[in-house]
């Protein structure tokens, strides 16, 4: 019973392509997040959604577009992929966005742009 799942686990693609990463949580949480972990292992918040509504949108190129069809899903679509997009992307969820909540992370999606 995976709490937070991401697909695919690995993604290798050419520059300029458009790709999506899917995230699903079965914890009944209201809030979901996308993080980018770069080659130096630095984790940076990209987006956060609470009940399908965007609440955090850090400085991320608008080639990245999150989509939340329902509160259990937060997908990340990336247009016109660039070499610098290569990283591990983590999805996470928490009960709420009030800050006192533990975040549960997915296994990560390793994206390699050639």
């Amino acid at each position, binding site marked *: 019973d995976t709490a937070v799942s991401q697909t695919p686990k690995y993604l290798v693609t050419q520059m300029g392509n458009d790709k999506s990463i899917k995230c699903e949580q079965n914890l009944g949480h209201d809030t979901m997040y996308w993080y980018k972990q770069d080659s130096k292992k630095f984790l940076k*918040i990209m987006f956060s959604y609470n009940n399908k509504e965007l609440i955090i949108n850090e400085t991320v190129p608008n080639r990245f577009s999150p989509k939340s069809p329902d509160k259990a899903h937060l997908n990340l679509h990336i247009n016109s992929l660039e070499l610098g997009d290569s990283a591990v992307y983590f999805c996470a969820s928490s009960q709420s966005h009030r800050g006192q909540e533990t975040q549960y992370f997915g296994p990560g999606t390793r994206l390699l742009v050639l």
Partner: protein
Amino acid sequence: AQSVSQHNHHVILSEAASLELGCNYSYGGTVNLFWYVQYPGQHLQLLLKYFSGDPLVKGIKGFEAEFIKSKFSFNLRKPSVQWSDTAEYFCAADDKIIFGKGTRLHILP
């Protein structure tokens, strides 16, 4: 701006050595603090968290952390490390879930 800093980027210890990883935050209001661990090839998982109350927090696998408000610190400690503690450790603070850059811990068998 809110920030979280971890001073040690890479720590190498022998088994049974004591561990202390530094974490400082800059946040003016009430702060909630977390330590997450990422074992090789695995995803992030929570080690421990501090919201309020006793500033000495016990976590899983023998880890503990102490919140010192006057020093804006939340250092992670373990009296005797094991080889299986080799991992990346992230300190985090809310709000906006700000992470430190991580500390890579390598335990020599």
